[in-house]
Every structure is written in structure tokens, then in C-alpha cells.
């Protein structure tokens, strides 16, 4: 207890000379902290419409509303979050889960209104939305509301270190570049159960990948099954839409991973490797699927080509009870998959597994049977109720340069390297082309060089018209090729193959001015005076392939319609302009990959089934 004195109250006099504690509002404004959690901001350009914010919101304050002005594309839904400030609790979970980091909270917090409907708001970015966000001089605190806000007033913003998702993927165990270029051993080793589980559990289940996948696989579902350690369930889900899991798990072009919203600020979920994991862990596909074949319908379908499209259509039609016969000119199934991708990417076992699985449903295979040679196309049309052709693109394009006849063709080379006895390669090989096939060729070549000239100097060079940025091969392939020691010469066009005493001695190249014209069409121009000579004893051309439809008789060829891009035209059922003839795969679509072929096959199988059930 203090000593009481009559003078004690006089101590209070000193407060007269102190600055008052009261804020002289509104003249003396107190700005909210830089991290303040106020109303939302959303950058519509970065927002993918994935809907994770709506999923995590504990109050269901966020609804995804469709915005017709936005063009939906792979990896971007035309939906944007709408906030209800009669629900929102400003917790910021939506900010921490937002994969593109488009959703942020501003420091604005004023909205006072007599109408509750005004509390529902679709946030936009302050940079774009000039009607709502005003610069400091036009902004007035007395008018402040959801539609009268201050610009440059960002508050709580996303931080990758504190995000609720894991931005880094589980690294795929790989054989080192030094080791792998010695042989055709498969490059990736595959996930262990633990790795697969933790990779699968990164998925946020937004479903953007499913829309991007040509075959619309239920990706979220099977990834979820893997995260729950149920790879059988995962495989069952995959097999519903894709009969080639082991193949697609290795060489799929993974449109899904490009669309994955996690890829925007981190790495996408390794969907392809997870599919590979599911296919590799399960012992027997057939038991997993537990599918009973329906009763035979008695209808028969001929399939030309045992590639991805042909195999898939056979599978889907068998599951509907139709009889299927597959005609294939090669001695085994797989088509382009069997001869194209090198073994270090797609081992023979994987192809065999998938082909055997499809054969196990009772699909008839006629190998070594080329349509047009061993059996006539018209005959097939007569004997079968429907014909599906997915013959692929087997004819390599050439660059039309001097002495082009001395160059090897990519597909012949790959096929030989894969199926037949390994071809002899030169010590200094030049590969022309910058696509994925060119990468396959170059890397195959490198391996053969390592095997044929052990311990000696050998080199593989790649020449392509495109610059590093424009190169059509996937970034991953380029990186791996670089690691293995392929020497790239981007932005050089081939001029002619140089001969010395009848032997190939090198490639003369000219510098590229531009590859595409103003409309974005392929139309290269060169600096004719700037040339370079690459020395080499072998040249392989890998600049693209086309199809060969010479097996189709002329009278039908006339009525067969093509698209502007010289592809076979099909309707929504997958049927060509010739009734009863369906098509799919590389001869139809522009993607020219396995999963699109499967998508075509699925569409065509539905179409064939529809046609067969009608008659």
C-alpha cells in the first residue's frame, strides 16, 4: 500500500503535458499491418479455377462460379471463386492452399452496407480491375467498400515455405547419366511403395488433369487410391479407360502433368510415374479388373494395326462382347510402341505385359499380315461388320538436302536398334531434328556408340532448326540428353551431306533466321551466307513422319475425307467418311501420342458399338 498523501493526486498533472493516447481519427490513420488478413484479391490470369480454395474453406464461403468470358483450356477451368463475406472468417486457409498463388488477402477491410446481398463478391486482381481498385488519391475511407478499394494494398500473401501443399515432388530414382549411357537399361527405377504413397499424397484432387487428359482418365481417384496404399484399386480405375498402363506409365506425353496446378509454383504430381507404379506392383491385371466378359454378340470387327489405338479399340470392343481380329504387319503387338521408343524408356516386358493382357480377353491377332499385301482391304470390309484402322505414321520425312539418300531414316534406325540386331553406328553421328524422336535417335545412337567403341572417343551431335526455346522435344528429354553428352547445335538448318571418297564426311549447315512465319506456321528462313560444317561419318534424319495409306484401294481413297492438316477426318463417333470404316491414332489426331490414340479408340469403340447395336 502506497503512502497516502493529500498531494498524491497532483502527480496527475504531468499527464497534461503528454501526447494524448487517442488516435485523432480520421486525420491520424492507423494503417493495418502488412500481413493483415482483409478482403480477397485474385489474379484472374494466374488463377486456374482449380477450386482448392472452395474445398478447404471451413465455412463454405467460397463457391466457384462459371465465367463465360474465360476460355477453358487444359489446366485452366473457366471458373473463379466467389466470396461470401457473410461466411468468411478471414482465416487465410484459401491463400495457403492456392497452388498458383493467385489468391491473396488485401489490407482492405471496410464494407458497411444495409443490403446483405452486397456481401457476396467475386474478387479480382487490383492491377486489372480499375473500377474497384482506386489509387490512394481517389480512395476515401468514408466510401470504402468491397467495390471501392485501395490499390496496392496487398496484405496476407502466399509463401511457398508455408503452403499447405508440398511443392517438391518425390525424386524418381534414376540411373546416373554415366551409367545409363553404357547400355539400354531402363533409365528410371520406379517408386518404392513408400515413395509412391508420399508422392500420391501431394495431389490436391482438383481434377484439372482429368480435363487435360485426352482419354479422361480418373486421375484424382487412382492417385488417391495409391495414397491409400491400394494399388489394385488404382489399377482398376486406370484400366477402365486405359488398357495400356505399363506403356503409358512410361512413355505417356503426360498432358495431365502439364495441367497440374501444383506445377505452377512447384513441380506437378508425378502422375505418369504413379501409373507406372500401379501397373508394376500389381501381379495380374486380369484378376485386378475382375471383369466378366459379356455374352458374345456375334459381331466381328477388324482392326488394322496393333499399336496403341488398335490394341485399345480391341480391348474396349471385347469388353462389350464383340469379336475382334487385329491385323499387324509386324511379328508382335505394340505397333509404334514396339519399335519407336528405345528400350531405356520402354522395356520389352512392359509392352508384352499390356499386349498379353489384351490378348487374354480373346482378341485374335494376325501378325505378319500386312493389309494390302497379305489381305485386301475390301475383303476385310466384306468379312467384318466394321473396320477400324490405326496404322500410325511409319514413313519418315526427309529434309530434301544434297545427298539425302546417304542419310538414315529415324524410324528404320530405331526399329533396327530395338527389334533386330543392333545396327552399326559411326563414331561421329549427326542427328537432324529437334523433336522427341530425334532425341530418341540421338540417345540410342549414343548408347550404341558406347557399346561398339568402348573406351574410344565417339560423339553424337544434334542439329535442329529451332532455338533452345522453340525446340519441340520435351524439356525433360533435352535435359537428359544433355546430361548424357549429346552435343546440340540449335538454330542451324541442314544444307547438304558432304561426301569424301563416297563416304559421308559431314553435314553442311546454314544459320536459321526464323523458323515460323508471322502466322505461326512452319516456314523456315535462313542466312544463306552463314554456314558451318559438322564433321561426321553418319547422318540420321529425324524430322517427322507421315502415314502411308496405300493399302486402301483407290475407289475408297477418293471418298476418304481429310482435314486441313492432312489428317483423316472422322466424325464424333470416330467414323471416317467411308461408312463402316473407323479410324484413330496418329493418322487422325495432331498430338500423335499413345494416350490420344487410346482416346480415339475409346471414341471409336463407342461409335462401333453404337453402329453394331443399331443393325
Amino acid at each position, binding site marked *: *500500500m*502506497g503512502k*497516502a498523501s493529500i498531494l*498524491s493526486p497532483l*502527480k496527475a498533472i504531468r499527464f497534461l503535458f503528454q501526447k494524448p*493516447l487517442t488516435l485523432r481519427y480520421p486525420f491520424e490513420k492507423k494503417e*493495418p*499491418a*502488412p*500481413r*493483415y*488478413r482483409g478482403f480477397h484479391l485474385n489474379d484472374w490470369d494466374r488463377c486456374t479455377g482449380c477450386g482448392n480454395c472452395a*474445398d*478447404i*474453406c*471451413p465455412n463454405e464461403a467460397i463457391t466457384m462460379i462459371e465465367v463465360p468470358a474465360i476460355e477453358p483450356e487444359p489446366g485452366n477451368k473457366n471458373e473463379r471463386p466467389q466470396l461470401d463475406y457473410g461466411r468468411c*472468417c*478471414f*482465416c*487465410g*486457409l484459401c491463400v*495457403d*492452399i492456392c497452388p498458383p498463388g493467385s489468391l491473396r*488477402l488485401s489490407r482492405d477491410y471496410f464494407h458497411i452496407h444495409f443490403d446483405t446481398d452486397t456481401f457476396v463478391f467475386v474478387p479480382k486482381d487490383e492491377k486489372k480491375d480499375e473500377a474497384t481498385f482506386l489509387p490512394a488519391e481517389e480512395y476515401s475511407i468514408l466510401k470504402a467498400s468491397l467495390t471501392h478499394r485501395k490499390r496496392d494494398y496487398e*496484405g*496476407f500473401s502466399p*509463401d511457398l*515455405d*508455408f503452403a*499447405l*501443399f*508440398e511443392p517438391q515432388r518425390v525424386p524418381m530414382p534414376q540411373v546416373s547419366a554415366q551409367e545409363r549411357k553404357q547400355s539400354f537399361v531402363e533409365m528410371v527405377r520406379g517408386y518404392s511403395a513408400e515413395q509412391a504413397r508420399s508422392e500420391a*499424397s*501431394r*495431389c*490436391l*484432387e482438383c481434377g484439372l488433369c482429368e480435363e487435360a487428359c485426352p482419354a479422361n482418365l480418373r486421375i484424382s481417384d487412382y492417385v*488417391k487410391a495409391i*495414397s491409400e496404399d491400394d494399388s489394385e484399386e488404382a489399377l482398376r480405375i486406370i484400366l477402365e479407360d486405359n488398357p495400356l498402363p505399363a506403356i503409358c506409365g512410361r512413355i505417356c506425353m503426360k498432358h495431365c502433368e502439364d495441367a497440374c496446378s501444383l506445377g505452377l509454383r512447384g513441380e506437378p504430381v508425378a502422375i505418369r510415374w504413379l501409373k507406372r507404379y500401379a501397373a508394376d506392383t500389381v501381379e495380374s491385371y486380369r484378376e485386378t479388373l475382375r471383369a466378366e466378359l459379356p455374352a458374345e454378340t456375334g459381331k466381328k470387327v477388324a482392326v488394322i494395326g496393333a499399336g496403341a489405338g488398335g490394341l485399345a479399340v480391341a480391348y474396349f470392343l471385347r469388353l462389350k462382347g464383340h469379336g475382334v481380329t487385329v491385323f499387324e504387319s509386324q511379328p508382335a503387338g505394340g505397333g509404334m510402341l514396339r519399335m519407336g521408343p528405345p528400350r531405356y524408356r520402354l522395356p520389352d516386358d512392359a509392352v508384352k505385359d499390356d499386349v498379353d493382357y489384351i490378348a487374354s480377353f480373346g482378341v485374335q491377332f494376325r501378325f505378319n499380315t500386312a493389309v494390302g499385301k497379305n489381305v485386301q482391304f475390301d475383303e476385310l470390309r466384306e468379312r467384318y461388320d466394321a473396320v477400324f484402322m490405326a496404322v500410325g505414321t511409319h514413313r519418315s520425312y526427309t529434309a530434301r538436302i544434297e545427298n539425302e539418300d546417304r542419310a538414315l531414316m529415324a524410324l528404320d534406325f530405331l526399329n533396327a536398334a530395338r527389334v533386330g540386331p543392333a545396327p552399326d553406328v559411326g563414331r561421329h553421328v549427326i542427328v537432324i531434328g529437334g523433336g522427341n524422336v530425334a532425341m530418341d535417335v540421338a540417345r540410342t545412337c549414343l548408347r550404341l556408340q558406347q557399346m561398339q567403341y568402348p573406351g574410344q572417343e565417339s560423339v553424337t551431335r544434334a542439329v535442329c532448326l529451332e532455338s533452345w526455346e522453340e525446340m519441340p522435344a520435351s524439356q525433360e528429354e533435352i535435359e537428359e540428353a544433355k546430361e548424357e553428352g549429346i552435343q546440340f547445335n540449335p538454330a542451324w538448318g541442314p544444307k547438304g551431306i558432304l561426301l569424301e571418297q563416297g563416304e559421308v564426311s559431314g553435314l553442311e549447315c546454314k544459320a536459321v533466321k526464323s523458323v515460323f512465319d508471322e502466322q505461326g506456321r512452319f516456314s523456315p528462313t535462313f542466312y544463306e551466307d552463314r554456314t558451318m560444317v559438322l564433321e561426321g561419318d553418319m547422318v540420321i534424319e529425324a524430322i517427322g513422319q507421315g502415314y502411308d495409306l496405300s493399302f486402301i484401294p483407290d475407289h475408297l481413297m477418293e471418298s476418304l475425307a481429310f482435314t486441313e492438316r492432312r489428317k483423316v477426318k472422322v466424325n464424333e463417333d470416330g467414323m471416317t467418311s467411308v461408312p463402316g470404316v473407323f479410324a484413330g491414332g496418329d493418322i487422325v489426331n495432331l498430338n500423335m501420342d499413345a494416350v490420344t490414340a487410346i482416346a480415339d479408340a475409346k471414341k471409336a469403340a463407342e461409335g462401333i458399338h453404337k453402329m453394331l447395336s443399331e443393325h
Partner: protein
Amino acid sequence: MAQISEIAGSGSGRELELYFGPQHLGMVGNFSITLKVEGDRVLKATANPGYLHRGFEKLMEYRTWIQNFPMVCRINVVEPDSMEMVYAMAVEKLAGIEVPERAQYIRSICLELARVSSHLFGLWAYSNMLGFDTPAQWAMYHRDLVLDLFEELTGGRVYHIYLWPGGVRRDFPKGFRDRIVHTLHSIGGWVPDYDATFFNNRLFYERARGVGQLSQEQAKALGATGPVLRATGMKFDIRKVEPYAAYDKVDWEVPTRQEGDAYSRIWVVRDELIESVHMVFKLLDAMPDGEVYNRIPNPFKWRIPPGEAYVRCESSRGELGLYLVSNGGDKPYRVHFRTPSYPHGLTILEKALEGASIADVGNTMISLYVVAPEIDR
């Protein structure tokens, strides 16, 4: 309804029923007490909670583990951080999540700042109740300064949603340490003024002495914890007896008093406030550098293995416990908060008000440090 004349003339031994709250100036929080009075003596008091019942524990069973985070802090609006802490601790225990060392320090600092703000709020409520307007105004001002710190650290003034499983949600901003020190120094500089106007004030002594007195035996039997128990002489503080966060890393004292009445309880609060300020300084000095967050699993796929846990921490009001049951799902199976105000505001309050005068009802209630939303949940 009692008429004024009846109440005035009730010295004759007539019993009346008086409704104290929820709309009453002497009531802090949405709470109500039904008093049976004779004259101005309370014969019997019946606490009547439930005005703030939201069914939290039921709602949490419907939300995933991470969605519950914005939820838990709303149980106690005065001191939300200890609610977050206890939930984070329980989840970490069940899910086996490690917390980085620096995060433990930040958590402790956060909790102590929250204790400071909560005690200042209590001081406001109590001095305001007794008519000491000046210290009440100061206390509320100083609490606001602490809230400014929280705003800068967490982005929220009142609800921070900052202590997460696996650590804390963001690291200290640049220069934040200095601002904590500055703010706490400026609050500390006012302690002599608080003492002169309030704590050493004869009026406060006369008004609070002997009010709501509890013996230690009574306090123990009724489940008292926190300042209410410490005012009866027991050095019982969860931070000491079962240390969590970084409380075992620094030296500090548990203030106690012996009398067990309102006066000693408020003094315990004052001493704790000062001790907390000192503790923040010590924690800031000892705080290591490093990570502050171990990433939790993907919230959409997060399942916690079956099990149950009881964790507790010391909120500014006493023992705050959480009994958490998981059945292996993505949501809690059962959540039950053991809030300190629950025994204080229901059992002890009823007991302490027996025989008290009407003028002391609010006095007793606030000195017991009752926060209504904690009771109702």
C-alpha cells in the same frame, strides 16, 4: 418481475429472485446468474450459461483436421492463442509431428503476449467494474498495443490462427523483435502508475478484500486452477509442472498469494503480467535461428491414426485441456475442451456468491476470471 418498492422494502426478510444478466452492465460477457436475494444478501446463486453455446465440439466433428484451425480460436475470444496451442499440441501428439525448436520459442512468446493482452483485458474489466476508470482506460490502451504486435505477426487483431501443428504459420517479420521489446517496455513503464492508481489504492483493497474468498481445500475440491488456485497459495502452473513449448528453457517464477479472495487473485494477475513480460524478454534472448514450420501432410488427404490424447496448457485463466479422439479418419471423432472458466464460472461462482452482497456479484465473477464463451463452447 420485482418492483422497485418491493426490493426497497425487502429488508423484512422477503426473498426475491433477481436476474443478473445477460443484458446487464455489471456482467462481462453473455452470461446470466439468477440470484435469490434477501435485502442485498445473496442467498443462492444459479449460474445460467448457454447464451454463447455454438456446439463447437459437434461442429469440429464435421470439419477436417486443418479446417478446425480457424475454428478453435473462436472458443475463447479473449485469449485465442492458448486454444490454438492446445489443439496443435493434441494433433501433433496423435499424428506424431515434430516441431522445430525456433517455433517452440515463437509459440511461447506468442502465448505470453496473449497472456499479457488477456490480463490487461481482465484488468480493464475489473477496474472498470469497481469504478476505477483511469487504469481501465490505460489497460485497454495497452492491450491494443499488444494487439498491434499480433496484427503485425499474424495478420489478425483478435483471431490469430497462427500456432499450427508443425510449428507456426509465418516467421517473425523483419525488426519484429525490437518492436516487441519496445512495446513491452512502454507498457512496463506504466506499472508504477497502475500501482499508484489501482493496486496500491486503499479503495481497491477495501472493495476487494474478502470478496469471494475460497480456502485452498474448497478450491481444490471444486476443480479450480490458474490464478484462482494460485491465490490460495499453491504454485500450480501447467507451464511449470508439465512444461510445453519452450517454458522449460528459461527461468521464471510462479507468483502466488495466500488469502484466496478477489484482492489476492487480482494481485496474482498483476504479478503474472509482469512475470510474462520478463519471460518474453528472456525467450527473445534465448531464441535460436532456424526453421519455424514442419510441413503438415496434404490437408485433403490427412488422416490421423486412431488414438486418444489429453493435452493441457496453462491459459491465462487456468488449466486448458483438450481431450481428442481420432478414429483414423480425416476428421476428429470427438473433441472436448476442458476450459478453466467451466468450473470457475459454474461451480465455484455459485459457491462463492452464497452470502455475498449484490454489489459484489460482478466483482466476484470478474475476479474469478470467468469468460462466458469458454463455458458455453
